[in-house]
């Protein structure tokens, strides 16, 4: 056993009536890449945010290299050698990349109270270069970067301080394969220097390959810690959920049956960015998968299909000839869209579950010009029950729900509107195994009931596991079509992607 770098002893944390952490003990040794895994709301982020000084614990102690450690702020934690990359966007959009990297530390590059932009930019370029992201312009305004590059800026910022402990909270979901490689390189570097990494991810496969040790949390309790040779997917999953996960994760049939009728037709669809000359037919009772690299045009395609962005060339038409020209038309014709960016585009965080769920269905609920509260409640009740949304009441603000439950609310919107065509863009992004499985079941049930689904995803396993047909987009064009088959492997599909 190597030297203990950081230890946490009997940490407790309450959020109102919810216990986020209960008497948690956790140890990070030198040279460890320590994975934290658990369902949404299990306490992973709470634990790491306490270690990183973002919030304080209600009780308990922490030690770093044997000395009492109690950071009052993120900056103090950083000075003590603990840096964290948060799950949310941790960069300020309106300032330069370089300013983000050295936020609060500009003094080093200032003379007579004036910050030298040149020195700052140079140091920032250096910091970016160190993690292999030298292509990101240090002098650019941060909002001009895509979410992936902004994450890498955070990584550069964390690594530049040469921390002893690096905490990575659910960062890989925002990264493409290239970005992930940079992150893994940083992790390896930390490991080779005998420092410690705490790694949070929903992607079990990733954790199993990256981590040397893994701790499972559930409802604020530590369930157990496994060393690398004990890693086993089904064991970890049942530890997370607290019960055996039975049956196939995805679906068992391979006949790829679909309805006769084409319910949606895309013809020569070309968007302002990325999507180029995409044509296909979507049938009733079909799950049509779209895969590809994050910047391959799959997300843009989803927006075009639903009319959020308008096509430059080509069209999206329904079976009855309706032309989808904007999102209102789409919703009127019983289409639904689950956005990749849930909190920004799909949900109203400061509104109740009820107000969120009924929003697309209001036209249906109106009687004599007025929307009756009773009908709203009935619709919401149905959605909450059928999707098993964990909440206090339908009047609870959605911001207090966990990620998986927020996503269920988004699904509830479209089920409530009796959607017949669903465009799902990364519907299981950032949700835990339990919710994931119930979403797959839901998609399958919807398919069986005749609903047509476009499933856009960056997870190949999910696409292969769920789709009746699978298209791969590369640089905005369709670069491969695969029929459902038990023999189809990720290897086959990856060829079409790169």
């Amino acid at each position, binding site marked *: 056993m190597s030297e203990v770098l950081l230890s946490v002893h009997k940490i407790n944390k309450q959020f109102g009536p919810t216990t986020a952490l209960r008497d948690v003990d956790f140890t990070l040794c030198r040279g460890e890449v320590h994975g934290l895994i658990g369902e949404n709301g299990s306490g992973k982020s709470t634990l790491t945010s306490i270690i990183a000084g973002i919030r304080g614990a209600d009780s308990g102690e922490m030690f770093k290299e044997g000395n009492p450690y109690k950071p009052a702020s993120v900056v103090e934690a950083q000075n003590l050698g603990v840096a964290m990359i948060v799950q949310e966007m941790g960069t300020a959009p309106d300032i330069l990349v370089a300013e983000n990297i050295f936020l609060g530390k500009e003094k080093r590059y200032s003379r007579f109270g004036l910050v030298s932009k040149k020195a700052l930019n140079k140091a920032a370029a250096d910091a970016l270069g160190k993690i292999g992201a030298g292509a990101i312009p240090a002098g650019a305004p941060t909002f001009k970067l895509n979410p992936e590059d902004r994450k890498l800026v955070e990584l550069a910022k964390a690594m530049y301080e040469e921390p002893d402990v690096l905490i990575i909270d659910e960062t890989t979901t925002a990264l493409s394969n290239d970005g992930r490689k940079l992150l893994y390189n940083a992790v390896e570097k930390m490991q080779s220097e005998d420092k410690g990494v705490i790694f949070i991810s929903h992607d079990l496969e990733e954790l199993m390959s990256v981590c040397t040790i893994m701790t499972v949390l559930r409802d604020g309790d530590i369930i157990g810690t496994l060393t690398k040779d004990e890693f086993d997917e089904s064991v970890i999953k049942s530890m997370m959920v607290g019960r055996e996960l039975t049956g196939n994760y995805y679906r068992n049939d391979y006949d790829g049956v679909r309805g006769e009728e084409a319910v949606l037709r895309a013809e020569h669809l070309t968007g302002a960015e990325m999507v180029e000359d995409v044509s296909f037919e979507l049938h009733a009772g079909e799950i049509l998968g779209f895969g590809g690299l994050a910047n391959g045009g799959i997300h843009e395609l989803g927006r075009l299909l639903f009319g959020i962005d308008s096509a430059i060339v080509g069209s999206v038409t329904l079976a009855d000839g309706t032309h989808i020209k904007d*999102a209102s038309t789409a*919703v009127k014709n019983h289409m639904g869209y689950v*956005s990749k960016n849930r909190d*920004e*585009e799909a949900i*109203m965080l*400061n*509104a*109740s579950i009820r*107000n969120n769920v009924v929003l697309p269905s209001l036209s249906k609920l109106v009687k004599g010009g007025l929307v009756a509260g009773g009908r709203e409640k009935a619709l919401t009740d149905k959605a909450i029950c059928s999707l098993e949304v964990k909440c206090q009441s339908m009047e609870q603000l959605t911001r207090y729900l966990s990620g998986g439950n927020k996503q269920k609310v988004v699904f509830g919107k479209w089920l409530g509107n009796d959607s017949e065509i669903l465009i799902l863009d990364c519907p299981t992004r950032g949700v835990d195994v339990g919710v994931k499985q119930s979403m797959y079941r839901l998609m399958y049930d919807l398919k069986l009931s005749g609903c047509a689904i476009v499933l856009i995803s960056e997870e190949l396993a999910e696409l292969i596991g769920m789709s009746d047909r699978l298209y791969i987009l590369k640089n905005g064009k369709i670069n491969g079509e695969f029929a459902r088959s038990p023999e189809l492997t990720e290897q086959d599909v990856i060829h079409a992607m790169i």
Partner: protein
Amino acid sequence: MARFKQKLSGLLPVIGLLVVFAIFTAAGGSKFLSGRNLNLILNQSFTVMVVAIGVTMIHAHGGIDFSVGAVLALSEMLAALAYKQTGAPVVLIVVTVLVAVICGLITGMITVKLRIPPFISSLCMQFACRGIVNTVLQARSIGVTEIKEPGLGVKLPVLIGLAVIVFCILEFTKIGKYNKAIGENIKAAKSSGVNVDIYRIAAYLICGVAIGIAAYFDLLRNGVMSTNVGYGLEMRVIIAVVLGGLSLSGGYTATMKSAVVGSLLIIIIINGLTIVGVPNTYTGIIQGIIFLFVILFTYKRDRLGLLPR
């Protein structure tokens, strides 16, 4: 605990109203509580309240309207001119409402279709309306003294009726619900199928009707139309709704209660200060300070911008 807090913050404006009332009752005594003064408070609150009720629709979607005072003046002036021409009293209400609705339509169209921030477009509207009024009137004033001012017996039912109607629009119709959804998250509203342009313009039209009604009664109360009509009304209305608990970033905090309670609060504060002997010139400063503090306490810190879109 969180729920209790949520409830408490909803009740805060009402508690504030009671506290302010109690303070001025104690300080001003019989002078403040006299029938004449209470009557005055109601009359003074009327214009602010009617306009605040209308403007709540715009605040719901995260908009703001700096033109209400100038629009009020323009509609009063045109109504007075039309009345001088025709001599028919009914012309007054028709013209005030019509003019205010047209102004609302223009501001709304500019804001929504040209994608100009509402505080800019409504400021332009303010300048334009004030400009027309000043050009036409010069230093003159138009008297409409032949028609007797309607008493509280007419005004109170009008006020209550308008409040109930807008309350229903806000809480039970698509217009109200969509506007609040737009204020909460315009992208989510759009992707839920809401035609955000049309519903935002609808809010401006409803606000226009309210301004028109306020203009009609304001004209009859003054009996004369001059260039200083409606001066500073926009700020008083914004302070009122914010004092009432509405968030300037829009969303589900937009309620009828915030318009009604907030208007009473601001007028009682102004009136009370005058009664206890604070010079008129100071009340502006005090309003500014109150505004700043309320904004500090109410605006959602997790949002990036303080000003509405």
